[in-house]
């Protein structure tokens, strides 16, 4: 077991080769307050320099024994590069992630600059990935994520406008989604070139608590398929919220791993999708790392494994203000309970 590096463990999982035990990692934000404090900076600063972004990712990974480091942390980097204003909440004492206060009024107004990867904070993200590659790339996996086309569109145009237009002026919404699909394909390739080992496509605005399965199938799925067809492996599709009604459609998008949150009925999902695809999930990224007892943590990890996941990972960004003993206990439980083969991955 000690011979396998964290990076190898993660990459083997994605290529479904035998691993020693389940990796502890995520495809979403897992920066922690203890790591931020250890570096002597404040939460808003982690978004504003490559050194802070990469440094806190590495520190969080080292402190709690994760197998990967993940950047970026917020969902506004691409909209900001398009020219939208971002609230960073630099003076806030609480943990507040950046937001977009004012969006475009309609899809056809959205401007996508040619050189968007050089605008806003995009160079910070690219450089942070390069720093990770340089400092931990031999031993640990480097993860990144990109919003899916519909969710990204919801960061550019108000979601209610977008949803109503998807019925009333579908062609305009589809035109924007097509433009964003092409951009996401390019951006995923760019992040891989910078050094990312895996890319998670987070299409969280399309769960069945928002869109109908019918709309998912006609509006969302074709574009997800196009992205996954263009991206090289490993590639993950993550949707949080209500996914039971669309899990088969998610399975038919071309990703080699599906990630869901705690609102998914995992055991049913495994039956529906079979054992030929990786299933990742789905512990509560707030309750478990910051509130649960050691026994509750162990029970929750076991429940995920018993339901058929191939890796126990959080269903959303980990709430940064974790209890260190909880985060350590989660990862210890995953390593300890994850020694047996899972539906899609064997053991060494």
């Amino acid at each position, binding site marked *: 077991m000690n011979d396998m590096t964290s990076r190898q463990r993660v990459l083997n999982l994605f290529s479904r080769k035998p691993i020693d035990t389940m990796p502890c990692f995520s495809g979403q934000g897992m920066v922690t307050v203890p790591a931020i404090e250890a570096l002597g900076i404040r939460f808003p600063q982690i978004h504003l320099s490559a050194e802070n972004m990469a440094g806190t990712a590495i520190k969080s990974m080292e402190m709690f024994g994760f197998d990967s480091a993940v950047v970026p942390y917020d969902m506004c980097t691409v909209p900001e590069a398009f020219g939208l204003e971002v609230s960073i909440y630099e003076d806030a004492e609480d943990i507040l992630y950046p937001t977009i206060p004012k969006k475009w009024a309609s899809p056809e107004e959205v401007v996508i600059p040619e050189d968007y990867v050089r605008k806003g904070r995009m160079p910070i993200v690219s450089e942070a990935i390069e720093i990770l590659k340089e400092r931990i790339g031999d031993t640990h996996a480097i993860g990144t994520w990109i919003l899916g086309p519909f969710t990204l569109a919801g960061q550019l145009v108000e979601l209610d406008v977008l949803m109503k237009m998807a*019925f009333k002026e579908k062609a305009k919404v589809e035109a924007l989604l097509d433009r964003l699909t092409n951009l996401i394909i390019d951006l995923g390739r760019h992040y891989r070139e910078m050094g990312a080992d895996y890319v998670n496509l987070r299409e969280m605005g399309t769960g069945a608590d928002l869109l109908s399965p019918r709309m998912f199938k006609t509006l969302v799925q074709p574009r997800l398929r196009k992205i996954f067809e263009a991206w090289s492996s490993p590639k993950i599709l993550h949707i949080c919220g209500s996914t039971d009604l669309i899990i088969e459609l998610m399975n038919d998008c071309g990703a080699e791993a599906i990630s869901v949150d705690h609102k998914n009925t995992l055991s049913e999902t495994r039956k529906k999708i079979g054992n030929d695809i990786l299933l990742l999930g789905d512990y509560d990224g707030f*309750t478990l790392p910051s509130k649960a007892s050691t026994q509750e943590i162990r029970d929750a990890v076991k429940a995920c494994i018993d339901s058929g996941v191939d890796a126990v990972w959080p269903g959303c960004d980990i709430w940064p203000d974790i209890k260190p003993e909880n985060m350590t206990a989660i990862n210890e439980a995953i390593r300890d309970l994850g020694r047996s083969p899972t539906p899609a991955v064997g053991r060494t």
Partner: protein
Amino acid sequence: MGKEELREELLQVLKDGVVNFEEDKVKEAAQRVVDEGLDAYDAVMNGLAAGMEVVGDLYDQHEYFVPELLMAADALYAGLDILRPHIKVEDLDQKVKGQVVIGTVQGDVHDIGKNLIKMMFEVAGFTVHDLGRDVPLEKFAEEQMRTDSEIVALSAMMTTTMMGMKKVVQMIKEKNPDVKIMLGGAPLTSDVAKLFGADGYAESAGNAVQEAIKMISQLRKLQNK
């Protein structure tokens, strides 16, 4: 056509118009209610709100989803804007008295759920103090104190913003433990809502509308007794 027959017909048009997202038909029917001197409050509760009740059922049966709720809401507002100025003050005095402070917490700019709930409170006759979105936490307590509202409704769509709600609950309950606090948002679970000290919660916009519809249904039953 007798007055009662006309009333029934217009109520049906209002109801169907909401269910089928037909803003123009709703506007036309609402205007006729006003022009014919029919009871505007009756039209809101037994036409528009009754339509939203059907919409809620369709959401529950996974026939409708959030885009459909939003389009039904537009149709409802199209009628409500015409009818509301004609609701008699004594109607509201007899039916519902209440005030609610509503908003999404700082760090969150998603307000679909908040706006749907606001609509249902307005339909029910509550006075709604809408603080908007990305609202600094202390504003909720300040507005509750200023208006002496019985309910404060907060929403956060992201795991990364829901912690703000806990602080707001604490701030308000410290000053006034009788205020009822409703939380809404996708990251919520009943355990988290309980942990935060809330009196009620809804995990999605549709779910929140369902809860609000139950409240309105009770009002309609009381009104029709």
